[in-house]
């Protein structure tokens, strides 16, 4: 087996399902567009123009991709340890809330060099704690982290709602007061072409987080053990790894990544915590991680894809209703989830056939 073909197989395995899923989504999209009596070509052109076609639209894509990168990385980090974190939404909200709380609590005029790291740590810690609880329940009691994270979404969001609605909100709104402390600059401050878009320097934190997660997963002992636990818990245990502890750590890491995502809205964009800002980002993060094959680089690319879809939905709003984009996002996830194992099977079967005929020859 040549080195080339060895590289090709995993690459095929990574790309083919994504392409298949996209093809299916485009097909379904065409059907939906046609039912509204529009031309698919025109809609797609508008979609691209409104996203990658101008600096503002692209800035918006970057902004949305930032949050999705965090929730995607969060899901991927847990998935690498063999766990499903379906609770990114509440972890994201908690992280954002903690950052806002710290920013509001710091005295006015606290320099960013001090405030930003504090908020960062607060967001990661808060998200991490919310994530670690299901990890601990799994390690200690064998409780399914899927169910616990889903249930915790309801519990945590209701608790945050209670705190904000009864103690912290600005009258007539659903958000906390605005903070001047800890604000992270917009990208437009450096690249004027982005003017107006919400893209901000938290994007750099997201990229750093992706790089850090990559390093952690693939270059450190902790990552070696985490992935071993995800692939073969029995082998990891044999290798001296305490599986339960890795579960807790992985879930805490996952929650921390999601929690950091809260910065994008709270510190980078609005400078306050607002009820419901996390809605939908958690579930989309699952899609992002899935399409990105739980690889940090893949997650970043997939986040861009989903951000494009969701910003593009706004751009094509004149032609088709927003409901179409919701349907399309679900179709992409569904097609992806279905085609990953299928493509894997097909590729392995064909590899076997090839090697069988190769031997015969």
């Amino acid at each position: 087996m040549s080195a080339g073909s060895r590289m090709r197989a995993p690459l095929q395995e990574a790309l083919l399902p994504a392409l298949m899923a996209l093809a299916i989504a485009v097909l379904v999209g065409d059907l939906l567009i046609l039912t509204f009596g529009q031309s698919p070509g025109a809609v797609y052109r508008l979609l691209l123009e409104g996203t990658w076609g101008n600096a503002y639209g692209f800035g918006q894509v970057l902004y949305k991709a930032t949050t999705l990168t965090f929730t995607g990385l969060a899901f991927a980090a847990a998935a690498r340890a063999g766990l499903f974190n379906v609770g990114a939404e509440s972890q994201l909200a908690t992280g954002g809330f903690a950052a806002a709380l710290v920013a509001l609590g710091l005295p006015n005029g606290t320099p960013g060099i001090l405030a930003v790291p504090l908020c960062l740590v607060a967001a990661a810690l808060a998200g991490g704690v919310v994530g670690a609880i299901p990890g601990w329940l799994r390690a200690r009691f064998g409780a399914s982290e899927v169910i616990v994270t889903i249930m915790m979404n309801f519990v945590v969001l209701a608790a945050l709602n209670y705190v904000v609605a009864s103690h912290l909100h600005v009258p007539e709104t659903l958000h906390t007061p605005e903070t001047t402390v800890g604000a992270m600059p917009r990208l437009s401050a450096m690249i004027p072409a982005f003017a107006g878009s919400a893209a901000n320097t938290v994007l750099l934190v997201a990229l750093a987080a992706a790089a850090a997660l990559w390093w952690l997963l693939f270059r450190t002992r902790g990552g070696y053990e985490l992935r071993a636990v995800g692939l073969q818990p029995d082998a990891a245990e044999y290798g001296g790894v305490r599986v339960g502890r890795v579960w807790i750590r992985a879930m805490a890491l996952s929650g921390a990544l999601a929690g950091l995502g809260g910065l994008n809205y709270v510190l980078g964009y609005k400078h306050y915590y607002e009820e419901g800002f996390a809605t939908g980002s958690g579930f989309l993060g699952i899609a992002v991680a899935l399409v990105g094959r739980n690889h940090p680089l893949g997650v970043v690319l997939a986040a861009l894809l989903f951000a494009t879809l969701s910003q593009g939905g706004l751009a094509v709003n004149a032609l088709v209703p927003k409901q179409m984009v919701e349907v399309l996002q679900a179709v992409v996830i569904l097609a992806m989830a279905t085609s990953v194992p299928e493509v894997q099977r097909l590729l392995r079967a064909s590899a076997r056939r090839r090697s069988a005929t190769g031997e015969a020859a």
Partner: protein
Amino acid sequence: MIVLVFLAQTLRIVIPYLLAAAGGVMSERVGVIALTLEGFMLTGAFTAAVGSYFAGSPWVGLACGLLGGLALSLLYALAAVRFRADQVVVGVALNLLATGVTRFFLRFAFDSSSNSPRVPGFGREHTGSAALGSLLDSLANPLVWIGLVTIPAVAWVLYRTPFGLRARAVGEKPEAATSLGVSVPRVKVLGVALSGMLAGLGGAYLALDQHQFTDGMTAGRGFIALAAVIFGRWDPKRVAAACLLFAAAETFQIQLQGAQLIPSQFVEMIPYVLTIVALAGVVGRATPPAALGRAE
């Protein structure tokens, strides 16, 4: 009197939970995670409203609700059983799909983003406000009866019929079932389809009782039903008890009439917190079917 009021209200609230949770039991007992109950319910609610509206008969609506839930569940079965896709991911996607599709067609069919027109439903109107009246009103709704017999029916199917025996075997040890010539995929598809139909009926109850579909009208009831399945440890009797407990808590909160003894946020958490507590084994170990969530 107050007891009667309490009973009548608990009854109305518990019906969709019972229907969806009964579906959840079927699905999880054949080894397929019932994350999708919410989506099945929402789809069932929508198709029930559409059916009742265009046919002018709530019975057609009921049938359509069942079929709507079935359609989505077959999609779930296709992905999770035929293609062996990951059940959690597919479940999440199907819930998103149900939200999107119902909104899309609500807009498409009725040009509204909030609700359908009024559709025929069950039950009498103008019954006055007497508690007895409202109880009678509920009892005139065939879906209430269907809901009430569902749990015993599911228990009967599960524990007394050949299909139930196979379902339990498939959920616990599919390879054993296979070795005896039982088609595991077929049993799984049937279980998932049943869960879709039952949850769809739960949605139909909501829509027909409300005489219309409104966007997102299930409002998390599918997840409460899933919570009941787990809290009830996958056993129909206990699951029914869990549904009743959750419904009674809701009734209690409603009957308190805004007397803010504890913030409503905390009352809303009850089913979810109880489920987590149950999973932590505080009230006896909650052991799911051994093969739950397994792709093969």
